[in-house]
């Protein structure tokens, strides 16, 4: 599908390269990021890596298939080996490419728990308890736009520091825009370290009179309006919260910086995932440009759920024409029979295999040809949409993962995707 000159993204090589320590799967929502992350993790384990997959919001059955039943923030071992639990079918048999000696863990991010842990790590027990009980903290830790992204990054840093795995695969939060992932942690950091929070804490901290005077002017407006709009108790809660968090600002910044550096380190590879649809590819474009701007290491684009045909030699137009030919023949046969019996429509149940002339004998071929034409049209649309991306980013390596007929919800399904990584692309 990609341009002839477009470099091919070899996921298997990326996995096999022992220098790859972190793979970040990013992209807009609904493109199959979690599935891709899990499939990469599984394939890496098959190829002998010790891998942990950090998922953010997996589909229930997919999570269950990896043995994840609750948000517990703990990496759980995944029985990834083929032939585990008596599974049958070719996808469950060991594969030539399997190396052995690998292991796989998976975990689901609990963002509130992760945030709580940071607070507990950076504040003495009394102060921590005070923060955790504050309504503003509860709002911030469970619903602030960006907290999930920040905590995913924080967890990534923790996993990396633990150094128990030689490969970490991260699935990014299902934000609308892929860029949120890069911006949100800084946004949260900026917020926690912001002008306003300083303003709110300043009167308590600073004694300088002139400074205080200026501040008080602004502060008076702020308190006035907050009290007016929200009611009395609010301001007190805010101040308690802010002064309690004050001691932790340094810690927050430090952690955010550490993770940011980790993302730029040579062992990290960003994998942008998109479906061959305009919105998803537009996001992918923004993301690729942004990674370049920030000096982040881009591995390439994984084009997920691509429709291909094993019979691509038969064009949509010819396929439709052939279906028409057969339909006409069937209709004529039916008309010829109409003298004896009620008219028989091709494709109807009554037509299947009855009477000497079998008037609808071609219904199967007609359906197959129409279906093929539709698939070829879909493939052409996907190709056109993809070319918008490849034309703008001719040096970005691209790989395609074929659309799976069913939802992927078990290890066998992940294995099918994982094994397609090594296959030669048409």
């Amino acid at each position, binding site marked *: 599908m990609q341009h002839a000159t477009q470099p091919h993204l070899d996921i298997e090589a990326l996995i096999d390269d022992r220098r790859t320590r972190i793979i970040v799967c990013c992209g807009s929502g*609904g493109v199959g990021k979690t599935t891709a992350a899990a499939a990469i993790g599984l394939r890496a384990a098959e190829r002998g890596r010790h891998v942990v997959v950090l998922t953010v919001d997996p589909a229930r059955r997919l999570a269950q298939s990896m043995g994840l039943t609750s948000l517990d923030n703990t990496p759980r071992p995944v029985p990834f080996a083929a032939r585990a639990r008596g599974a049958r079918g070719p996808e469950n048999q060991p594969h030539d490419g399997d190396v052995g000696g690998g292991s796989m863990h998976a975990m689901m991010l609990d963002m509130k728990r992760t945030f709580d842990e940071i607070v507990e790590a950076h504040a003495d027990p009394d102060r921590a308890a005070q923060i955790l009980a504050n309504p503003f903290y509860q709002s911030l830790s469970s619903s602030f736009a960006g907290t999930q992204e920040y905590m995913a990054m924080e967890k990534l840093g923790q996993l990396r520091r633990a150094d128990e795995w030689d490969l970490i695969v991260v699935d990014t939060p299902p934000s609308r825009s892929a860029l949120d992932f890069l911006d949100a942690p800084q946004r949260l950091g900026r917020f926690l370290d912001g002008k306003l929070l300083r303003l709110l804490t300043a009167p308590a901290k600073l004694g300088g009179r002139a400074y205080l005077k200026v501040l008080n002017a602004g502060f008076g407006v702020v308190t006035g309006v907050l009290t007016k*709009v929200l009611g009395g108790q609010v301001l007190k809660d805010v101040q308690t919260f802010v002064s309690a968090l004050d001691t932790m600002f340094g810690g927050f910044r430090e952690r955010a910086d550490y993770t940011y550096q980790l993302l730029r380190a040579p062992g990290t590879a960003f994998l942008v995932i998109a479906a061959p649809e305009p919105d998803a590819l537009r996001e992918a474009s923004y993301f690729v440009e942004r990674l370049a701007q920030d000096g982040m290491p881009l591995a390439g684009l994984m084009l997920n759920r691509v429709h291909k045909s094993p019979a691509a030699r038969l064009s949509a137009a010819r396929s439709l024409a052939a279906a028409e030919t057969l339909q006409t023949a069937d209709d004529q046969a039916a008309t010829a029979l109409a003298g004896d019996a009620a008219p028989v429509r091709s494709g109807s*149940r009554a037509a299947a295999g009855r009477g000497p002339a079998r008037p609808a004998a071609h219904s*199967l071929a007609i359906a197959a040809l129409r279906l*093929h034409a539709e698939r070829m049209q879909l493939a052409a649309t996907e190709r056109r949409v993809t070319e918008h991306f490849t034309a703008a980013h001719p040096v970005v390596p691209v790989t395609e993962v074929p659309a799976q*007929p069913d939802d992927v919800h078990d290890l066998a399904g992940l294995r099918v995707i994982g094994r397609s990584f090594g296959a030669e692309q048409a």
Partner: protein
Amino acid sequence: MPGPDSLQGVSTRDTDWEGVRLHVVTGKGGTGKTTVAGALALALASGGKRVLLMEVEGRQGIAQLFDCPPLPYAERKVAVAPSTSTQPGGEVYALMADPESALLEYLEMFYNLRHAGRALTRLGIIDFATTIAPGLRDVLLTGKAAEAVRRKESGRRVYDAVVMDAPPTGRIDRFLNVASEVSGLARVGPIRGHADTVLKVIRSPETAVHFVTLLEEMPVQETLDGIAGLHGLADGGIQAGGIMINMVRPVVLAPDQLRAAASGSVDEHELALGLKAAGLEDSVRLAADLVVELTEHARTAVAQREQQRKLAAPGQPCYELPMISDGMDLAGLYQLAAALRDQGAA
């Protein structure tokens, strides 16, 4: 809940949502929520109605959908609904509501605090208040919708209906549960009063929450969870609306062929004979390849049927919207609007 056979609203043409004036449209990311919200607004506008389509997540999705420049915090006409032989066409207005502007508007409207508002913006307090104060953001946005629903000019309602392109299913509970979210923050005071007004609109029969889904496991599960969750919201439940099944592709096989294909037993010989009869060369190998396609198609169709069965369980009306295969544009949008009207959604 008004159903297709309800007796109320004996007008020229019954729809499933007679009496509903605030249509909240949610759905999992990637299901086409914004597109469906736009199509619903168009559908509701036909017959000379005026509809407001509201966006609350600051993505400018509506502007892209209707192919117009980015929307400000102001109501702009973005499309006209087609007229029929008996009725004039309607109008769709769009509004990009962001919490910061909504708070400033609120302050100005109720407290005449225009200047203070500017100072507050400079100090970052508006940003602060709308991001951190629990529920404030949501109450401002739902509040804007409630205001538009109730707004009157010289005794007449300004909008016949308001369609809100709401946050995705994962966040809809919190978004609509304004009362309890805000009560954690302010037990008394003006914001609380505002929340109570919003609540009255949201839990009235004038409001319904529609779910956009695809026939895939995760969006279907989120839809079912979302519908189940509505009963517990806003002190007494919010009315569940329709289920809009987006990007539906027709099944090309007859039922018995589908069963056979899904179980992997397509009659390859029969297919090859058919292909040969159509004059296609190398019919045997072609048949083998097409069997792969037929089997995949059948497996997808069977899996989708299972999801369709699950969607029927809660008893909400389901509407099917066809896949627009050559890319979504304005023409496609009108096509979806027509499908919604034909099926009684508007």
